[in-house]
């Protein structure tokens, strides 16, 4: 790792902000093209039904309607009607892919069956209501445990069963460990996470250029290159006929990395009608058509010795996969993988079953299954500590991987088959720091004093380790514009609010003059970068940041080389400052970056400076397969109103380590924002369905996102253990804050309610459920 300079490790203000603050940013719905039609989708009102017929005639007659397209209209244009995106895995028992538009059988409420194109969205919605779809309702199943039972309704009538995939993960002789263990504690956990609910919903604008025979899709996506590839595959086109551009994105949080039926439908509609087409997802569509995380049911047990040292952990997970594979087995894979990471656990075994259900597909939301793994681990540790009468923090301390054992090899393989190696970090130190800052030392005294006043306060704790920086690469081009001298950064990386452009500006400016205003980052456009993976899995600073660093370093070296020839001075005596290369001893001897770029841009018939290759630019593909493991601990104090069940968070401390910090202001922002999301997952967010798989929380009055009064001041404590895995020493941070929150809050609630023996084996928990547990505890004692 290279030692960072001031520009790379400082609280630098964001380059994104001015436009966003003035209303001058450009989100996909801000794009207007001449002749553009507006789309609305006709969606299934059933959890499961056969589609007998679709009659579009009435809808087509509505003035202002230009077309109503169904599966039959699409098929002639499609090489395949299926969106095949499942990540590879031997665990699959069936391939269940989404069609572009459903025409035979609908398998969840919200599944699109037709697209209406009209002069404006109002008319499109009027007409969508007039598309007559004759459905024959079929039995639906929503509970993944029920779905796996013999005789359960089939999610797809053509499937043999509802088991989508199954796999086992683990190491060591877990059964022997349990057989010889003095203590075994078992928990059955229900874990729910909800939707992403970026404030900007999804959206697409597509335009077909018949002159060039190319199609451009502007999409609010986290993965433009993947979108291009899937779209090209479905259309049977060369990828170079399709350009996918990500404009400003109003939040991603996971589900915008998925390619959706609406994306291909909008593109095809533009191609078929030869008119630009816009579709902007509305909030109700977001509830029924954008992927979510939902339910996992865990049975897990832990074996410990008399000192609370862990001997083994085993269990099983039933995971609600939804109706189709929209990403793969990765989410529950990460859940199972994450369980043991922070602790020394000699034996481990987890069986994971993915059940199809008649609900919108499940794919990662910020945290991507890892909060669930941590929840399982931390709940088991609290249980063991309470049973053994060892303080919860002390029991954890005895089992955390100590800092001096880093790097620490876990006998686990990543989903790509790589050995899991925890690269760096001091986990016990993070825990101790969080506890100290939360006032754990005198908490017992405060708790007793509060109790005397009739107040119930509790302190909870959770540790986490999270894999970040998913490989294998993210390409970056750094180019000095020969005309202006501006430094342009292109990348497959995609910005959706996580300050990626500022990160690029800092990393690149460090090598090229130190002025971030001279750097313009243009991520997220397949037209400027042939390859890319995109923004997800807390990976961009690690992967794209490293590529940018390497590319900028190459450009710097080249700039100095050319300048040394032009200025006739040794490169060692030169430096880049602002927009120019100058002699360290005499800055008046200088040449601008633009002049340098021009000197190697080529003039017909004239030679390049001696020994220099063309162009002042470099493209780098920093490749790394191992993940960088970030870690941290949350200590949270709550007060529970035992009569209403209301939970108030008095104090919230998160100590975390994401390796080298490039911009502490932005790291704080990521941690705090994700932590607030975690509060929602613990106490508020619930995506409900009834027994017929009808969603029951389909507006933001029923589905509760936290607002400012529900979120306490969140105190962040930085630890920096740089990783050796990349030249910047960085780890990902975007998702980390969410991971430890739910278990820490449940731990705190239990601690506050000890006299009622309240035990929490779920997330989220509602005030009503807390009151019921308190009442049950009272009765049991009476």
């Amino acid at each position: 790792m290279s030692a960072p300079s001031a520009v790379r490790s400082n609280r630098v203000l964001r380059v994104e902000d001015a436009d966003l603050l003035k209303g001058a940013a450009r989100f996909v719905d801000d794009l207007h093209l001449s002749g553009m039609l507006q789309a609305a989708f006709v969606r299934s009102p059933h959890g499961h039904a056969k589609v007998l017929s679709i009659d579009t005639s009435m809808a087509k007659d509505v003035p202002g309607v230009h077309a109503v397209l169904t599966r039959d209209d699409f098929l002639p244009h499609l090489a395949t009607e299926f969106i095949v995106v499942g990540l590879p895995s031997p665990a699959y028992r069936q391939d269940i892919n989404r069609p572009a538009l459903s025409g035979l059988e609908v398998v969840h409420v919200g599944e699109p069956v037709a697209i209406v194109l009209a002069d404006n969205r109002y008319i499109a919605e009027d007409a969508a209501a007039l598309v007559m779809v004759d459905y024959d309702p079929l039995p639906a199943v929503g509970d993944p445990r029920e779905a796996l039972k013999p005789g359960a309704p089939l999610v797809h009538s053509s499937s043999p069963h509802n088991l989508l995939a199954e796999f086992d993960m683990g190491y060591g002789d877990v059964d022997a460990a349990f057989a010889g263990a003095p203590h075994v504690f078992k928990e059955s956990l229900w874990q729910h996470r909800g939707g992403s609910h970026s404030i900007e919903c999804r959206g697409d604008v597509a335009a077909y250029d018949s002159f060039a025979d190319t199609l451009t899709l502007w999409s609010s996506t986290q993965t433009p290159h993947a979108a291009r590839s899937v779209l090209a595959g479905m259309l049977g086109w060369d990828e170079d006929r399709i350009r996918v551009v990500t404009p400003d994105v109003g939040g991603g949080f996971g589900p915008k990395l998925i390619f959706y039926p609406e994306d291909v439908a909008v593109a095809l509609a533009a191609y078929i009608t030869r008119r630009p087409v816009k579709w902007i997802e509305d909030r109700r569509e977001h509830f029924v058509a954008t992927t979510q995380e939902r339910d996992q049911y865990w049975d897990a047990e832990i074996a410990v010795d008399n000192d609370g040292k862990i001997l083994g952990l085993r269990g099983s997970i039933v995971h609600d996969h939804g109706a189709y594979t929209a990403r793969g087995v990765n989410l529950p894979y990460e859940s199972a993988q994450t369980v043991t990471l922070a602790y020394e656990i000699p034996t481990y075994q987890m069986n994971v079953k993915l059940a199809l259900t008649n609900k919108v597909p499940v794919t990662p939301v910020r945290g991507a299954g890892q909060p669930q793994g941590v929840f399982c681990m931390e709940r088991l540790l609290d249980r063991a500590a309470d049973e053994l009468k060892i303080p919860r923090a002390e029991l954890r301390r005895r089992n955390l991987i100590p800092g001096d054992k880093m790097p620490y090899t876990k006998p686990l393989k990543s989903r790509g088959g790589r050995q899991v190696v925890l690269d760096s970090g001091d986990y016990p130190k993070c825990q101790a720091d969080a506890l100290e800052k939360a006032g754990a030392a005198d908490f017992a005294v405060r708790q007793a004093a509060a109790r005397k006043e009739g107040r119930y306060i509790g302190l909870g704790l959770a540790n986490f380790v999270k894999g970040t920086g998913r490989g294998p690469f993210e390409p970056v081009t750094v180019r000095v514009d020969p005309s202006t001298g501006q430094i342009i950064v292109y990348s497959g990386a995609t910005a959706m609010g996580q300050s990626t452009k500022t990160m690029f500006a800092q990393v690149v400016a460090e090598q090229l003059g130190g002025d971030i205003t001279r750097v313009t980052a243009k991520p997220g456009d397949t037209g400027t970068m042939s390859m890319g993976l995109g923004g997800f899995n807390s990976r961009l600073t690690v992967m794209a940041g490293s590529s940018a660093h390497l590319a900028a370093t190459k450009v710097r070296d080249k700039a100095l080389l050319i300048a040394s020839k032009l200025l006739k001075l040794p490169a060692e005596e030169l430096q880049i400052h602002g927009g120019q290369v100058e002699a360290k001893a005499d800055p008046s001897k200088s040449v601008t970056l633009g002049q340098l770029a021009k000197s190697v841009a080529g003039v017909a018939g004239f030679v390049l400076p001696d020994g220099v290759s063309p162009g002042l630019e470099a493209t780098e593909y920093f490749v790394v397969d191992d993940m960088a493991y970030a870690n941290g601990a949350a200590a949270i104090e709550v007060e529970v109103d035992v009569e209403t069940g209301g939970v108030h968070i008095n104090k919230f401390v998160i100590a975390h380590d994401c390796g080298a910090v490039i911009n502490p202001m932005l790291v704080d922002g990521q941690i705090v924002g994700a932590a607030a999301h975690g509060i929602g997952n613990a106490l508020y967010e619930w995506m409900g369905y009834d027994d017929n798989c009808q969603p029951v929380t389909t507006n933001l009055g029923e589905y509760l996102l936290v607002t400012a009064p529900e979120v306490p001041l969140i105190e962040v404590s930085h630890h920096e253990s740089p990783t050796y895995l990349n030249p910047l020493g960085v780890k990902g941070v975007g998702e980390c804050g969410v991971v430890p929150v739910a278990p820490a809050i449940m731990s705190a609630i239990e601690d506050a309610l000890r006299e009622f023996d309240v035990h929490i084996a779920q997330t989220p928990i509602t005030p009503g459920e807390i009151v019921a547990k308190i009442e049950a505890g009272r009765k049991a004692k009476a």
Partner: protein
Amino acid sequence: MKPPPFSYHDPRTVADAVRLLGSLENPKLLAGGQSLMPMLAMRFVLPDHVIDLNKIEGLAYIREANGALEIGGMTRQRDIEFSDLVAAKHPLLREGILNVGHRQTRNRGTIGGSLCHLDPAAEQVLVCMASDAIVTVAGPNGERAIPFREFPLAYMTPALEPDEMLVGIKLPLWPAGHGYCFLEFARRHGDFAVVSAAVLLELDAGGKIKRAAVALGGVAAVPLRMDEVEARLVGQVASEELFREAAELCRAVEAIADVHATVEYRQHLAAVLTRRALVQALARVRRA
């Protein structure tokens, strides 16, 4: 989520509005729009005609007359919130209003709109129920008064004829120094209450409860006036024990369940919030 097609009307007088109401097919009145507009966007209501009341003069006022606070139907919640008269004469209303939605919604939302929407968890509805408010409605034959206890007919159904509109509300004032408390339990700040309680208390010179009003919102399909609780209180010396006993009667209410709460939890909250509101109201009584 765009409103369906409709014809838009913006009458300038109550008489014109009532005439439109009586003559148009499938009309809907638009007041502050904070409930109707979302329902239009979701296409839960599909009116052929929308009659906008915002251009009618003279429906926004707050005044004291004949021992009552009189408020015009189109008075914005914001104006009630910032009214010195309301704060001085009907502090329960002010306390209730502070729990209504958010700044942006109170700026537009009207008391008449909320009363006619009649969400059983709505704060203004509950205050009117506790206050024995009188609703003034205008119809083709002029105005009539409806006691608020008779105003809710069923879930979100006010006792208005199809050609009638609410034009004002009268809240009889309690004597200076009365005790009051509006208390609600909501999942988040500004949400509709899971359960809410509104209490008014008046003590006699000897410290006994002379008069009490207790109302519950959010518990049932309509806001409830708790006559049994009031009967238990009146004539008694106020005490925590008395309040606890009286409030326990609330556990017997017929409650509804939804995504936020079960029947049992609502009944439990009804008792808890009633007791707390009584305690708080007593603490606020200014004895002469």
